[in-house]
């Protein structure tokens, strides 16, 4: 029993030791490439995404001001991170490890690639290789697209996947599709994963209690589960399927946490009356010094010791 604590400590330390090793990305993921070329526009969007999702730990790229964690998160502008292939960065952001969370459900594949675009903008020697055709291994040469429709009566979202090439358009069958609703942080999976039927259609049921914005709008997004096979196509849309958010602003009413103008009245009154009362008395006491001075002046004006008359009058004056 004596050694329980040290033994537990050692056991707890084991995984952190193993994590100290290099972060190995599976071979087949290393060579993965972005489906679009990195441009000034993708860099800008990537910067926005980076500032939201990455900055708090990794710091401003090039400034070497990442947060002091063990192991250190590292500055993306450094050689250590830049020597990763595009696919490696993409994989690490997607999967996460240790204290670095997985961004799989926070950002779409496209968004992660835009973030990579921003990270790469700090590397002068970087030359991008773009995946030539937007394609999938299942439908070679075809462009896969998703379309969405909302059936209000059934509270169902119908997602349709089609593969189109120069000649024809065929339904994408037996493909796993997932639907997400965007929330404050990340995306919330709606319903289960569905497989497309022979028409390329998957139907998702929107739960009745799903909160929306003040108008009941919900941003939803559909994507393939296996992006390796079917490509990283996503389809975003806004549907009016959520509960109308009736919660008022937390800073609309007077509250303890509000600004001073919206402080609770009882606080303003207690504080104000207390301060005024005490400082009023302080002023009163200060004025008594003047009274003492006036009496002294009057006494000095007369022969000392003072006559009985003078102080009595003075006393009344006070």
């Amino acid at each position, binding site marked *: 029993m004596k050694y329980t604590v040290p033994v537990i400590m050692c056991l707890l330390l084991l995984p952190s030791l193993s994590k100290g090793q290099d972060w190995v990305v599976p071979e087949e993921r290393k060579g993965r490439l972005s489906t679009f070329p990195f441009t000034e526009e993708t860099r800008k969007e990537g910067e926005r995404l980076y500032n939201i999702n990455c900055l708090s730990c990794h710091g401003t790229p090039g400034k070497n001001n990442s947060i002091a*964690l063990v192991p250190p998160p590292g500055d993306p502008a450094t050689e250590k991170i830049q020597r990763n292939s595009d696919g490696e960065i993409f994989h690490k952001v997607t999967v996460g490890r240790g204290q670095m969370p997985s961004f799989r459900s926070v950002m779409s594949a496209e968004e992660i690639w835009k973030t990579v675009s921003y990270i790469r903008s700090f590397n002068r020697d970087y030359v991008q290789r773009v995946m030539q055709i937007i394609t999938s291994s299942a439908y070679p040469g075809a462009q896969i697209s998703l379309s969405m429709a909302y059936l209000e009566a059934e509270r169902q979202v119908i997602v349709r996947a089609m593969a189109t090439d120069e000649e024809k358009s065929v339904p994408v069958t037996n493909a796993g599709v997932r639907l997400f609703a965007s929330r404050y942080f990340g995306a919330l999976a709606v319903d289960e994963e569905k497989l497309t039927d022979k028409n390329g259609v998957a139907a998702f049921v929107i739960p009745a209690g799903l909160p929306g914005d003040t108008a009941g709008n919900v941003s939803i997004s559909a994507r393939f589960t296996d992006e390796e096979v079917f490509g990283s196509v996503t389809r975003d849309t806004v549907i009016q399927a959520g509960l109308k958010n009736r919660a008022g602003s937390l800073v609309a009413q007077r509250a303890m946490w509000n600004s001073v103008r919206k402080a609770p009245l009882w606080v303003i009154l207690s504080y104000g009356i207390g301060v005024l009362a005490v400082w009023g008395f*302080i002023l009163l006491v200060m004025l008594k010094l003047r009274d*003492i001075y006036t009496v002294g002046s009057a006494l000095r004006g007369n022969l000392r010791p003072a006559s009985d008359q003078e102080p009595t009058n003075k006393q009344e004056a006070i």
Partner: protein
Amino acid sequence: MDETRFNTPGEQRKIDSIAADILKNVRINRSFILWMGFLSTVLVLCLAAYVIQLREGLGVTGMRDFTSWGMYIANFVFFVATSLVGMLISSVLGLIGYQWVKPISRIAEIIAIAFAAVAGLVIISDMGRPDRLPYVFMYGRVQSPILWDVTVVTTYFVLSLLLWFFPMVPDLAISKSRLEGRPAFLVKAYDILSFRWEHHEVQYRIMKQAIRILLILIIPTAFAIHTVTSWLFAVTPRTGWDSTIFGPYFISGAFVSGTAALIIAIYFFRVNYKLQKYLTDDTFDKIARVLVLVSIVYFYFNLNEFLVPGYKLKTGDAIHLRELFTGHYAPLFWTIQLGGLIIPVILLLFKKMRRPLPMLIISLFVLCGAWLKRYIIVVPPQAHPNLPIQNVPVEWVIYKPTLIEIAVTVASIILVLIIITILSKLFPVIPIWEMAEEENEKDKPFDKQ
């Protein structure tokens, strides 16, 4: 009947003798210059450390993300606590009618002024951007205990200043003609500040009215100042601070540290200013009893503060209390509780210990214990974050004050000593007129016989 006091030859003689005893210390002599020179030198050295902090930021301190309140805030709480003795002596004991507090009440006020004034500065030393201090007044939220704290500390300081000054006006009038050989500016200052005092009954009545208002006013203010300081901690849900008795716990602790500081001060003035006639053995015996009383009250609150959470042992409390009782802070904790509270109380129960020198030694222990107790209250509860966090640098987990922090804290203590020195060297430390009045009272029955 004449309405001017102290005008018979007999009374004048008394005044002469008391004033001579007390005013012999009001002078700028060699030892004063040497002592101030020493204090100023140390202060300049310590302020150099503050300049480094100002230039480099709070990173030069040991404070990090977990422990973001360190030695500065512990020191601040100690200063506010110690300043409360002004109210305890002058108001609580004075209003009850104890006569023995008369010779020590002005010393108590000097301690209150010095500690309250520097407490505000200590807070500024804890700010990374002190240039933003005006923002407290420009954008301060009336809901924030921090704003309440700024308000009550300022108010208490002004009230203490007035309570020091008002009863001194007659003394200034008595003294201004007895300051031969002192610098002209001092004589001039005495003349202006005595506000044409003529010892007339009307003036005495006005003064006593003013003092009475102040004595009553300072009681709620003093309670507010330290209760609000405790609320800076108690309004958070953090283990170790989340306590409903923090207000009275702090106040009772304040009386302990303030009384100890007062005993040290009056011992110093008794010996160095040769005031054995006024600061008698009996005065020490009485104030020792006060120290025992407030210590027992404080012990009672300690019992509540530790026993009740210790019985329930909620997860957070269990970690916190284990750290204090048997963990990292145990040696410090038990030293404080035994050496600064329990043993002093037991010792002071014996009459032999209620004499000046033993009391000085006991009070030094109590005062050091009181300072360290604030450290124990402020620092350990922050070492455990509310959310489980792993793999953080070790200096986040274990707070250790840096040399810079220690130097800046020493600077604040030096400042307190400088204020006490100036006030006690340029003005009479014992109320001359009250002593004369007391002797008159003693003589009266004999007059009648």
